[in-house]
């Protein structure tokens, strides 16, 4: 015998995940526009690896395969990993990262809903620690590098590692705008001169700033569609903006302006697609603000003083650890137990 309620009208898990995937499309489209189709290959590889690993792990764990594959959560993890690694990376890089994310960071912790860490960020962390060289060879935007790869060239390189005759990988790739800034600051170049380097655009990296804007656009859709809570992106971006703004005001020669931080690296995709993973973020409104502030603070610190090119992944993982504590400390008072409830 069933029990009440007898009617439900939920937005099911698969539809939620699907909307998040749709929201990534503007960013991916701009990615292809500026950097060529190699990223699509990375995404296809990561997604295939994600689904295969998910199916294998479900089988090993004796869980039904079909309903879990159909929830798109593994697919989303694959896409997010592909988007966080260089598109010209060898084919096995997204495969290894995604397989680790799904098998270890997700299923060894109990599968969907039970993982304490964002699987995509764990996958990224494993890759950047294990394969730092491959992880830092980012494609220059189309037409900006010294030589240009055709679409066919890109695909051939990903799978065979062979470049067209006379081309060097170094000439096609560059370090990220964040990384370049860090290196040049280290070498003593003032911020104003760094910003004049050809790889920089109006706000941040040429091309990559537009991709970030695409992700922000998708994020705003998710906010309007109420798929993600507003507290997380607002607190994160606000903190990053405020901190970088203060440092930039005090010492503009050594600290990048706030908009540079916003549109560089994984700030936008992190704010709207990574931190907002419900499974690994707090459940209370206040907790989400605390989580966003913490992630913004850590991201800025790692970017300004840390040894890694970007801080979003490690900030996310560190804040993931704090979620149970944050949840426990920010329990709201319930109906009839509030101040002023008695007159």
């Amino acid at each position, binding site marked *: 015998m069933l029990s009440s*309620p007898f009617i439900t009208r939920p937005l099911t898990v698969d539809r939620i995940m699907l909307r998040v995937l749709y929201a990534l499309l503007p960013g991916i489209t701009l990615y292809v526009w500026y950097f060529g189709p190699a990223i699509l290959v990375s995404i296809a590889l990561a997604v295939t690896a994600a689904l295969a690993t998910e199916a294998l792990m479900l089988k090993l764990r004796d869980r039904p395969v079909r309903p879990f594959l159909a929830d798109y959560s593994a697919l989303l993890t694959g896409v997010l990993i592909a988007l966080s690694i260089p598109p010209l990376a060898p084919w096995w890089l997204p495969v290894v990262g995604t397989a680790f994310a799904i098998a270890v960071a997700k299923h060894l912790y109990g599968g*969907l809903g039970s993982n304490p860490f964002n699987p995509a960020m764990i996958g990224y962390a494993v890759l950047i620690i294990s394969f730092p060289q491959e992880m830092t060879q980012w494609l220059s935007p189309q037409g900006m590098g010294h030589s240009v790869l055709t679409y066919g060239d890109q695909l051939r390189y990903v799978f065979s590692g062979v470049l067209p005759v006379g081309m060097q990988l170094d000439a096609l790739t560059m370090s990220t705008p964040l990384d370049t800034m860090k290196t040049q600051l280290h070498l003593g170049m003032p911020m104003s001169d760094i910003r004049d380097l050809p790889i920089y655009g109006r706000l941040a990296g040429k091309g990559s700033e537009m991709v970030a804007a695409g992700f922000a656009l998708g994020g705003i859709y998710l906010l309007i569609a109420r798929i993600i809570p507003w507290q997380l992106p607002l607190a994160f971006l606000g903190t990053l903006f405020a901190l970088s703004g203060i440092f930039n005001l005090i010492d503009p020669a050594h600290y990048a302006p706030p908009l540079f931080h916003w549109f560089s690296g994984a700030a936008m995709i992190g704010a709207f697609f990574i931190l907002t993973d419900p499974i690994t973020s707090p459940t209370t409104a206040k907790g989400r603000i605390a989580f966003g502030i913490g992630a913004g603070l850590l991201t800025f610190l790692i970017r300004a003083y840390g040894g890694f090119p970007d801080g979003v992944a490690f900030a996310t993982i560190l804040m993931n650890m704090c979620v149970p504590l944050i949840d426990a400390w920010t329990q709201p008072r319930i109906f009839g137990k509030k101040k002023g409830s008695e007159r």
Partner: protein
Amino acid sequence: MTRLHSFHGGIHPLTHKKESTQSPIISAPLPAQLIVPFRQHAGDAAKPVVQVGERVLKGQLIGEPVGMISSSIHAPTSGTITAIELQQIAHPSALPDLCATLVPDGLDEWGVRQPLNYRQLSSDELQKHLRRCGIVGLGGAAFPSDMKLSHPVVVDTLVINGAECEPYITCDDMLMRERAEGIVRGIEILRHALGTDSVLIGIEDNKPQAIAAMQRAVDDSSHPFKVVTVPTLYPGGSAKHLIKVLTGVEVPSGKLPTDVGVQCFNVATAYAAHRAVEHGEPLVSRVVTVTGNVEQPRNYEALIGTPFSDLVALSVAKPDTNRYIMGGPMMGVELPAVNVPLVKASNCVIAASDALFPPPPAPMPCIRCTRCAQVCPVELQPQDLFWFAQSHNFGKAQEFDLFDCIECGACAYVCPSSIPLVQYYRYAKSEIRARDLEKRAADLARERHEFRQFRIEREKQEKAERLAQKERAAAEAKAAAATVIATPVDPTADADDTQQMRIDAALARAKEQAAAATPKNTEALTPEQRAEIEAIEARRAHIHELAADAGADDEPPKHSQGN
């Protein structure tokens, strides 16, 4: 214009109210037999006061209230009582309860009805009359109405609940449209009994005809009642939430509305009070919605005890109907069988099919999306409660205010993972209650055993003392006899007695020695041990208090849809 307030969360399910409001309320014909349960209200079951084979008149008392929280049961029509036995009732447990079977004689002959003038009655007299007439909350909780009028605290606002927030149910809507005058008269009676000034009648804005009818009736009556249109939002008809919307006052957790000076009655209860006082009619019928998968969804005025199967037959259930729900689709219960009787709390029966209420998909894991928390009207964290219930962490569930959950089902309605959340909460609540009872029973058994030991010990001591006294008396008597030979005593009788006593004393002494040889482990304790035992006893007493408090918590029907 009354300034409205709001509460957190809530949902907007499709209301499906139009179907059953197209035609007026009609009286259901007399059924072939009526099954009248003796427990139709919160509290203790009524005690049968009629015999099998007895002819009863309509409105005749057949069950009288027992104890404080209880109510009266009346014959819904004239006829013969053919059985008083356990029968299946509309309870999800499907456990049988004591019911009277009444075969109508078709005359529908009323017994004595004595209309009263409420203005000449004190609150006390009105309460007694309502109790005699079996008036209970008709919104679903069936709490005896007299109890709600007998509150010692001053009530300054009377809230009348015409919200009817559950989908499909329209019995209050139709009652307000058609019998607004009677409702307003009933409200005035309840207001008089409470001695309040302010009366707010809350009706959701999806019932414009009911609002207009009530407003007209209030205007005609020239009572200063306020008809307030409230936004349609489930579960806005929960008494505490309606009070919040109308007055801005939040009834504290675990407290009753009267603790903040508000009392709340359902519109149908007010109407029943009017019939009871001004027409002398006990509660023998009510308006009930029959809807869902039926050809003619509508409202019936049906006698209490009418089998649901009769009502469903009147509305003609469609062939693919495979179950029946009493109440609304959000909080209703599936009937164990369709021939169980209509009771005072039955506001609606929905014929259901898999097409109407598709079975939910298989549950997926919780992804902590907190859509449940966003809609929870009590501002709980349903995702945490689910986690604790699932992992049998009941203490933690209680700590996270599980018992404040009103089981409205809004969380399960929106859950993307289709988790039957309410079932988890009911399970956790019943487990906690069962464990509490078990613990209390164990404590009681231990206390009884300890007291028995203590009593045996005490009796032994008293016996020994009595013996010693008697021996002393005998010795004194002997001494007296030796000195005064002429004293007229009968030494033989006394001697026999003392002989026997000596034997008893010797036996007792032997027993005592045996007991002393194996000292009980609670004797000869060090002060530290004694202190420890005392601490344990104190803790146990504290736990007892807590358990008693927790038990007291869930007795009042806090989550009534307005009684």
